[in-house]
């Protein structure tokens, strides 16, 4: 029998919703996180930008493809069951306005930076983007 005397966790992935009113860019994500372009935090924003780009897919497609995971067959039902009314309204308004609404998952076992972002619970918004990673709590 093995005994581990330390933190023991399983890996996890937590969902994000991203509304894009402008093209996604590292500079844009730096602004969204609240830093100057030459901030030493910029590499973290750049990782977030890269992963949002990599993992984000149209929310309707994601909900349709992952129906077995959450039991909702359409975006409206999914949002009703998983996010606040305010966020659901925000998503509906963005779709109505023709903005891109994406969804994806950040993972805890890719690297330390993504793991940190995966375990954080945050909601960020500016003129260009709305990023909801509030479901990211452990």
């Amino acid at each position: 029998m093995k005994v581990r005397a330390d933190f023991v966790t399983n890996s996890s992935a937590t969902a994000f919703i991203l509304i894009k009113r402008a093209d996604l860019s590292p500079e844009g994500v730096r602004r969204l996180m609240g830093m100057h372009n030459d901030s030493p935090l910029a590499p973290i924003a750049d990782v977030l930008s890269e992963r949002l780009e990599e993992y984000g897919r149209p929310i309707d497609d994601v909900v349709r493809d992952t129906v077995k995971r959450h039991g909702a067959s359409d975006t409206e039902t999914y949002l009703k069951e998983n996010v606040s009314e305010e966020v659901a309204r925000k998503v509906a308004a963005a779709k109505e306005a023709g903005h891109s609404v994406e969804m994806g998952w950040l993972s805890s076992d890719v690297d330390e930076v993504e793991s940190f972002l995966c375990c954080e619970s945050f909601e960020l918004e500016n003129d260009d983007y709305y990023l909801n990673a509030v479901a990211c709590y452990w």
Partner: protein
Amino acid sequence: MAKTTVTWIGDDKFVVMMDRAMTREAVIARGKAFQGTFSSEIISRLWDCFCGGLTDLKKEYEDYYKPEYPSFGHFLFWKCGLPKRVVRTILASDSDDRLVALGDACASGDYILSQMVESEVGHGLLAALLDLDEGRQSDGEDDDHESES
């Protein structure tokens, strides 16, 4: 402002020497983050993670141990158990405006953030925020701890 030096004396414990002007506010300013944003929150938590559990060794010596140990160096060596080389380094660059402190990387309990600091990105961030003297970071494992005159 003189650079910050860190000497690891175990897996989690370290001795840090830094300018007393290196406060939480100064570090947030160095981070070039806007106040009240996610970025400033991360920097503030990094400060807590790294500096939250610091024990000011000079204050500890002055307040409690001065009658017991003839010098700050003796206190560092005999009471704190710091390796000789580390003690010499501390004494060589000691001044009133420098903080000499013992830290514990596990003190804050912010496990995920402290894990991130171990990554290349996280370490670079901490180095930039605290103005770490990368060339003078070391561990004290090679030092003997047999005698101090």
